[in-house]
């Protein structure tokens, strides 16, 4: 493939301006996206200056009084900070521990299935939940877990002899969120790993088998190395979004009873900012989140590159 061959008409001739003029069609195509990025991505980035103000919508960005790091001081000194960090990191770490490996394990299992119609059938089914909204996931959860007539609640009650209110009891909230995520995304998450696995040379398996490797050693020495770099990239993205717990899911599952475990940074920013009108304070909280996220992505990427992987960008 002559991927790198440049078209003859646009070689390195003429001045910079002439070349730019020659590429004017490309710049014209670029323009709408560029305007979009500037207005909807970069403006809000500069909008974070209100975190250093006592912003009032009536005074606007330019007249609101400056307060320096006061909003951050309020946030870090308050009790909310620890509760939010505990809940956000609690959910994220549980996700990392259980939700992250789930599609890898399922992909490895699917890879072991040689009966092709069974495999295709299973794949078709497990992808489905990815396409439904969290509103529906939440409503299915209510249908199945509610203490009045939820079927799973009744099964659990029969087994344990106790009524377990998964939907409201704070101590079950994290587990509920992680469980929903696994149910919804585990199947779809396998695609990327199965794609990497489909590229493995069959001869590798044969050679390993001739050398006497069993199922687990094949998995460990042939299959896993084949998806190692995919796993690393997915892990970087996960780690980078450690403070992102997602909006829809938590908003839909939190209620006045489980809020002590359900309030995470994202819901807190919404409640304080959009509902409560504390724009500067909630922007400061959001900025804290963005900065931690950025540091996490960059460090995870560095680490991956140090380990000899290609990294994210």
């Amino acid at each position, binding site marked *: 493939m002559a991927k790198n061959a440049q078209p003859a008409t646009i070689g390195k001739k003429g001045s910079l301006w002439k070349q730019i003029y020659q*590429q004017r069609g*490309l710049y014209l195509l670029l323009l709408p996206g560029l305007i979009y990025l500037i207005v909807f991505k970069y403006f809000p*980035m500069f909008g974070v200056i209100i975190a250093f103000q006592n912003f009032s919508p009536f005074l606007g960005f330019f007249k609101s009084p400056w307060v320096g790091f006061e909003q951050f001081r309020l946030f870090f000194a308050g009790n909310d900070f620890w509760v939010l960090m505990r809940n956000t990191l609690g959910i994220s770490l549980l996700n990392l521990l259980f939700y992250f490996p789930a599609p890898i394990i399922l992909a490895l299992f699917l890879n072991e299935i040689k009966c092709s119609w069974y495999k295709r059938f299973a794949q078709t089914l497990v992808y489905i939940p990815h396409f439904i909204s969290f509103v529906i996931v939440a409503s299915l959860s209510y249908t199945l877990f509610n203490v009045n007539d939820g079927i799973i609640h009744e099964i659990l009650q029969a087994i344990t002899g106790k009524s377990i209110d998964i939907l409201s009891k704070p101590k079950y909230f994290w587990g509920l969120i992680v469980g929903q995520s696994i149910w919804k995304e585990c199947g779809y998450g396998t695609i990327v790993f199965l794609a990497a696995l489909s590229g493995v040379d069959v001869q590798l398996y044969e050679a390993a088998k001739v050398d006497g490797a069993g199922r687990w050693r094949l998995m460990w020495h042939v299959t896993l190395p084949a998806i190692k770099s995919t796993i690393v990239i997915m892990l970087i993205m996960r780690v980078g979004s450690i403070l992102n717990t997602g909006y829809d899911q938590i*908003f839909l599952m939190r209620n006045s009873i489980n809020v002590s475990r359900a309030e995470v940074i994202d819901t807190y920013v919404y409640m304080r900012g*959009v509902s409560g009108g504390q724009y500067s304070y909630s922007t400061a909280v959001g900025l804290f989140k963005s900065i931690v996220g950025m540091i996490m992505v960059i460090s995870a990427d560095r680490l991956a590159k140090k380990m000899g992987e290609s990294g994210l960008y």
Partner: protein
Amino acid sequence: MAAANSKNKIKRSVGDQIVQVLIYVFVGLFAVSTVLPFLYVVAGSFATERELTQRAFFVIPHEFSLNAYRYIINDGAIFRGLKNSLFVTIVGTLVNMAFTTTFAYPLSRKYLKGRNFFMNMVIVTMLFSGGMIPGYLLISNLGMLDSYSALIIPGAISVFNMVIVKNFFQEIPAELEEAAKIDGCSDIGIFFKIILPLSKPVLASISLFYAVGHWNDYFSAMLYIRDPNKEVVQIALRRIVLLAGGANPDGSPIDFGDLGAPPEKAVKMAATVVSTVPILVVYPFVQKYFTQGVMVGAVKG
């Protein structure tokens, strides 16, 4: 891999065969668990209220009833939501595709002057964002509150999807572009006449990603849309399904509007069915584009 395996089948130990069976069973159970709740909800939506309270779980109702569907047709909220969501999904996806492809094409040309600068601009947005509040204030200052444009424009380009499209454009052989240039075709002409028609598979995948995103979007609508007439399906569904019992999840009393009474079990299920059906009907036909899109993304990272 299948071929490699059949050769060695005889050698398999009993223990290994048990493991194989367990894997089949586990995968099968997980697959069934992903659809069982839907089957129950579909069955329940056609059942009578009495049966729903008496029987814990069933896939075929004893007594067939359409009352729940009558109720939601009379209520109208779900169908209004479906109509609004359909509009947002169609227009939104068109906007997404227009912005994403026009932005991706110049970035896919390695000779574009300033390409690195523009790419870095994109990468910065992946690493850092202003967060929810500055975004919300911007939308509100632009007068986009309570307008569908607030659900469509702010997410016009998903950087992730844009990179997939860009990588696909990059793979198209440069000879095609050269030949067209020699024939006097402009860059814009090449984009529309050569690049876009050659990229149909990836464009199909990406537009489906966007469409599903619009259809399922709950948070943006909650943030930006207050007018009940502009309610999208996810908001309507949440109101019907999750807010029964006279109180919102946060404890505040809710307004049932003209209907007066909390919707009942079968109604909740019928509402869930009606808002899921559009996705599930389309799904079998488009499934291959979803897998394909993820694979294009996966291969080039």
